[in-house]
């Protein structure tokens, strides 16, 4: 994982490839088979363990994901927050707590899929692949947080410039190339997850119902416009 060639492959070719597949794949799937865009919830078949799996998982993973995005978009502000050791440590412990929630929830969800016969009925091999990928990603993320602190600071200082260099089509690898294996694995797995998204149930993230917040409560569809005909 350390030669310049593999570094370029994993941290330049791979992210572009993943984004390329992601955009093309989701658009293609949305146009070709919109019917397949669903949360594919199994709450209907079992709801007690569903709560203790899915709720901690989603709140954990979404908070951690948001933190990554914030560190990507607002690195200065994150570094300013981290300028007091107490605040830095508080942020890191909070992040760790949410990551642990995600892990607990994910393990709960996997156990549920494994042991409940009804839920097992609606579980495909692809679902297992997604769950395993997520497990690896959450675990490596946790290990990075534990063994290579303090990620909130060095992500903003080192990885954000790398990610922006990708956005500007002028990749600078120095920081990632020298990063520990765990960090590299976490980054590569993120690209893998982005790349497989269009072909898995993960697409449900893309159809989060934001317009609901501002649309009118009732929806009426006409197959002929009332005014037009009159």
């Amino acid at each position, binding site marked *: 994982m350390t030669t310049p060639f593999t570094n370029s492959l994993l941290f330049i070719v791979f992210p*572009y490839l993943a984004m390329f597949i992601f955009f093309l794949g989701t658009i293609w799937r949305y146009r070709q088979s919109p019917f397949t865009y669903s949360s594919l919830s199994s709450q209907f078949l079992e709801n007690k363990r569903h709560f203790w799996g899915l709720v901690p998982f989603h709140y954990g993973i979404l908070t951690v994901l948001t933190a990554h995005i914030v560190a990507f978009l607002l690195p200065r502000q994150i570094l300013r927050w981290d300028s007091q050791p107490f605040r830095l440590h508080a942020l890191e412990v909070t992040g760790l707590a949410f990551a642990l929630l995600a892990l607990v929830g994910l393990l709960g969800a996997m156990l549920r899929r494994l042991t409940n016969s009804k839920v097992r009925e609606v579980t495909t091999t692809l679902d297992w692949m997604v769950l395993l990928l997520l497990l690896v990603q959450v675990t490596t993320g946790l290990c990075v947080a534990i063994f290579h602190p303090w990620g909130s600071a*060095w992500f903003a*200082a080192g990885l954000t410039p790398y990610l922006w260099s990708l956005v500007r089509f002028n990749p600078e690898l*120095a920081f990632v190339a020298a990063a*520990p294996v765990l960090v590299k694995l976490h980054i590569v797995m993120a690209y893998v997850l982005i790349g497989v998204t269009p072909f898995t149930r993960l697409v449900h993230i893309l159809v989060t119902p934001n317009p609901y917040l501002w649309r009118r409560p009732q929806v009426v569809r006409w197959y002929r416009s009332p005014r037009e005909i009159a």
Partner: protein
Amino acid sequence: MKSRFFPMAFFLVCAAPFCTTAQQPGNFFQQNCSACHTIGGGRRVGPDLKDVTKRKDRAWLEEFMEDPPAVLHKRDPYALQLQREANGIAMPAVPGLTPALAEALLNYIDAQGGAAPPPAAAPSVAERLFTSEDLAAGTELFQGTRPLSQGGPACISCHTLGTMTGLAGGRLGPDLTLVYQRLGGRQGAGAWLTAPPTPVMQSVFHQHTLQPDEILSLLSLFEDASQRSHPAAATAEIPIFLSGGVLGAALGLVLMGWIWRSRIGSVRRTVLKAAQRGAA
């Protein structure tokens, strides 16, 4: 049209980092080597490079320059000896050092060595004694409570010191407790900090260089740490950190259970149970 353009652009983008722009060896030396090496100015972290081509053959030198860790990995005796002389610090791979540039650099070193000793490339770290103010300022800079003037991230992001307690500093980079000796004291460490040579430090600090007064304060901190303490085990803070996280997660679970306490379990079973209880 679009579909043909995209792979093309994609290829170009991927190929971009492999092309390095031609560079003057003199400039390159100043930017990448001078933190650890001089030409006729005496030893810093690394050896004085004057007459280096007379001490060792060019083929070996070029191979070593292009990828020092690889040569060390082969347990080359001369390379290992160099590492011992540098207090165990290995020379990092220098980004952008192509074979052509390595040759040009050696030529440059030869040319410079023949001339009079070059003007002191060494940074001007003040010669005065460290004061308690320096130590205090160093601590603040290290922890980030006083921002670095050029906007670089605080040391605590990736480094820790044996003198820190509780949830100490970061562990992405090395523990800096003994860095003062390792980099050869005031002059060596000072030069190192002026233009950090490792790829990671370079990528983070090349646009946010450390200023001489900041370096002085940090040196004061490093000297103090190296005299007062020893590096803590790399896993020392994990129990505290982890227990904090576990506590937070447990709190989160309790909170979730409480927020959604009126969620539906099984209405049918509840009704059955209530009716049977009523009948009994």
